[in-house]
């Protein structure tokens, strides 16, 4: 394919895939070294994976390349020439484009409108007929296409992600940086999109640098890999020559990882959680959760898988009292549960919501106060149910901080000063240090490091072994496969598939996730 025709305007200078090299890239924020002397080389036409845990410096590196940050030291070489990138506009002019983890498209506009408005030189009056004809011609030259004149909101996640990539190519960007591009896709869609990128790179039209933490994607689609840990480049090489175990060792380092808790067989428990015909509406009044029926017994983890945006987060919000239930109800051992404080205590319902700083904690309140949310109105932390005893609150918090290994300067520190893993540990301490009968968990490990993830998953299994009925909603299929006794798939607001974990596999689940 002649890459000169990749652009609608067909400029005189043809652009092919470009190569990028960082030399000794270092970024220091105050006392924190976020990026420490990182040199990576991505050849033109290469599909390069950037592996690392959260906080390893992947996004910092990419933001330095994109001009969002200025590196403290180090240079950026584009096609072997030192090119300083001072603004994101510089990166754009150099042909470097980025596809973010979450979509940046305007949902109510069409694909054509989204592409045209993202151009730097939008005319004041847009001749849509001409633009759409040009876009059509552009799409014909592409290995894949999306409908041009339908609102983006009506496209599937896979199509949206393809559109994000097409948009970058339309803008004449030939070095694509992708930040965990498959987290919002079904396994099938992910394979398709990555396969297409792989083919285009092979053809020499684009170069791809992809941030990921999924080994499967690295081994199946990329050519080379660089692993970052704590801001340093700790290894790199050809994908075929590195084993998954080697990459994982590079990523994790020598951090102590808690063994996955053993699953006790046949836990006896008299708890039963029943979701009966739950209907929940979204902001526009449409039923995003449309009649969910599910029974979860004590000593069982039921994992709800699904592509993000199929009603899972609304379901969790409804079960957490953050969104009204329009129809149906939640029953625990046959009695209705209505998310009041009294019911939480009576039925011993606890929760680990996603994004704890948004759903479970108050940023400016202290760690001790945040840990006391469940107990501040009960003895010994309150006299007669209304007079607080701050010392009792602090002492109880201190014990839990120690038991759950929350790293905090003191009990008085505002919780927003803690790292993500420690915030989640503090919430864990608050929610799991009781006799738990029902546990509602949503994306509990999102954005956390390996050690915290292992700890949190082990705690969830412990609760199951102690007889709690656990509902786990997660966008991470691997997490569901690891933790669940039964797996359910949620698609378009309904549970479309339920199966014991031993009787299903990734492909079957993926098919139901895609809505077939």
């Amino acid at each position: 394919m002649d890459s000169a025709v990749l652009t609608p305007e067909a400029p005189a200078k043809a652009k092919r895939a470009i190569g990028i090299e960082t030399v000794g890239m270092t970024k220091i924020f105050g006392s924190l070294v976020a990026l420490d002397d990182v040199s990576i080389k991505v050849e033109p036409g290469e599909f390069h994976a950037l592996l690392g845990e959260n906080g390893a410096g992947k996004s910092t590196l990419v933001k330095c390349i994109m001009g969002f940050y200025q590196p403290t030291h180090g240079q950026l070489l584009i096609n072997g020439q030192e090119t300083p990138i001072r603004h994101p506009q510089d990166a754009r002019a150099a042909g470097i484009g980025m596809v973010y983890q979450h979509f940046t498209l305007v949902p109510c506009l069409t694909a054509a409108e989204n592409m045209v408005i993202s151009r730097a030189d939008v005319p004041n009056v847009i001749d849509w007929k001409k633009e759409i004809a040009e876009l059509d011609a552009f799409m014909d030259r592409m290995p894949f296409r999306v409908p041009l004149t339908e609102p983006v909101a009506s496209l599937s996640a896979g199509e949206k992600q393809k559109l994000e990539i097409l948009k970058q190519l339309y803008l004449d960007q030939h070095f694509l940086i992708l930040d965990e591009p498959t987290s919002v896709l079904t396994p099938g869609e992910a394979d398709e999109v990555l396969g297409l990128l792989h083919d285009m790179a092979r053809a020499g039209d684009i170069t791809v640098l992809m941030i990921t933490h999924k080994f499967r994607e690295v081994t199946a689609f990329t050519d080379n890999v660089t692993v970052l840990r704590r801001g340093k480049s700790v290894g790199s090489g050809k994908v075929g020559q590195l084993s998954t175990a080697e990459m994982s060792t590079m990523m994790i380092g020598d951090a102590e990882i808690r063994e996955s808790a053993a699953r006790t067989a046949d836990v006896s428990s008299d708890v039963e959680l029943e979701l009966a015909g739950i209907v929940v509406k979204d902001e526009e009044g449409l039923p995003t959760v449309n009649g969910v029926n599910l029974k979860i017994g004590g000593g069982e983890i039921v994992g709800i898988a699904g592509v993000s945006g199929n009603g899972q987060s609304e379901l969790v919000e409804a079960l957490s009292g953050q969104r009204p239930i329009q129809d149906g109800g939640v029953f625990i051992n046959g009695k209705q549960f209505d998310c009041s404080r009294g019911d939480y205590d009576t039925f011993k319902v606890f929760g680990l919501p996603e994004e704890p700083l948004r759903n479970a904690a108050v940023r400016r309140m202290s760690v001790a106060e945040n840990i006391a949310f469940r107990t501040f109105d009960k003895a010994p932390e309150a006299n007669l149910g209304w007079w607080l005893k701050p010392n009792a609150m602090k002492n109880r918090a201190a014990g839990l901080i120690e038991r759950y290994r929350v790293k905090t300067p003191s009990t008085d520190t505002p919780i927003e000063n803690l790292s993500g893993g420690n915030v989640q540990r503090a919430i864990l301490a608050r929610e799991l240090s009781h006799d738990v009968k029902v546990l509602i968990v949503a994306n509990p490990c999102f954005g956390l490091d390996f050690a915290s993830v292992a700890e949190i998953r082990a705690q969830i299994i412990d609760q199951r072994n102690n007889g709690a009925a656990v509902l786990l909603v997660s966008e991470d299929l691997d997490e569901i496969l690891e933790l669940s006794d039964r797996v359910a798939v949620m698609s378009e607001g309904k549970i479309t598939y339920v199966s014991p974990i031993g009787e299903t596999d990734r492909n079957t689940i993926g098919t139901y996730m895609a809505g077939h």
Partner: protein
Amino acid sequence: MTAVTTDTPVRLTDSTKFRAWAEAVAIPVGALVVSALIFSIFLIFLGKSPVDYFQLLWKGGFGTSFSIQNTLQRAAPLILCGLAFAIPAQIGLTMIGAEGALVLGGFSAAAIAIPLVTGGVPVVLTMPLMAIAAMIAGGAWIAIVGWLRHARGVNETISSLLMTYIAIAIMNFFVEGLLRDPGSANKPSTMPIGKDYMVGTIPGTDVHWGLLAGLILAVVLQLLMNRTTFGFAARVTGGNARAALAQGLPVGRLVVACTAIAGACAGLAGYFEVAAIHGQANASLVAGYGFTGILISFLARHNPIVVVPVAVMFGAIAASGGLIQRRMDMPDATALVLQGIIFVVLLTSETLYGRFAIFQQKAGADRT
């Protein structure tokens, strides 16, 4: 991250509290200094001496025992109106309708006084009944704001502002019509409550008892918000309503309760304006105390106790107005210019929190 160690005991406190406290003092004080500088430039433009102005401000506010009493007299409604903003602020609401609650509270006190006084109800009963009527009227009025917010999602800032105009209109409607005292020719007013029913002054001073009421309420509300389960639940709701809902806290009831408390404070301010100053309800109740209360609460970082000294400072600015008017030949509105500048600078300074390294705890070594 480093390996987790558990052998060091958990510390119960550290420098964070002190640093946060220092930040909360330094930034508003800095804003005041900057406001004074900007205001000085304004004065220089007018050809007046800033030095004279601030000297007269001090003299008119605190210079003599008369001026101190004048200042405290004006501080009383300001404390109550500051509290009326601070309490909803703690539950996350920007409620700016204290002026309306003050007017309605004052009017209700004057209105209920008419049958009580003419009916010969004893003074010891009439006075508390008037105060209670004022608090109920103000409280119920602002509770509507809270209810609208919770049940219907109506923006509380807009609704409380608009309801202020409705409250003033309600008072005018009655004062100019049904409840107009025929004797009030030029300025339509309710019937004077009479000297016997007026609130007296604190012995040895000319300051009425409203100042003490403000002080007591500031202490009580400080304790309510910081040492009771109600206050804790309200602060959780104010900090993160989603987290409060997930904890099963009665968010709606908390919001309505906090707005009702706020309205009751402003209503009580209205009672003292009627029963200690004017003796009747009329347009003089619309004096802007409710709006100055917003500024006071912001400067006090919505802390009920700190509202008291800040209110005294604004009382001094108001009290010195007359002196400055006479000596410097400047209009009364000059004080409003100063207040306006303080408000703008203060709101701008809100963006500075967390920007100064000295007030921040050192970032931990771990970053996960």
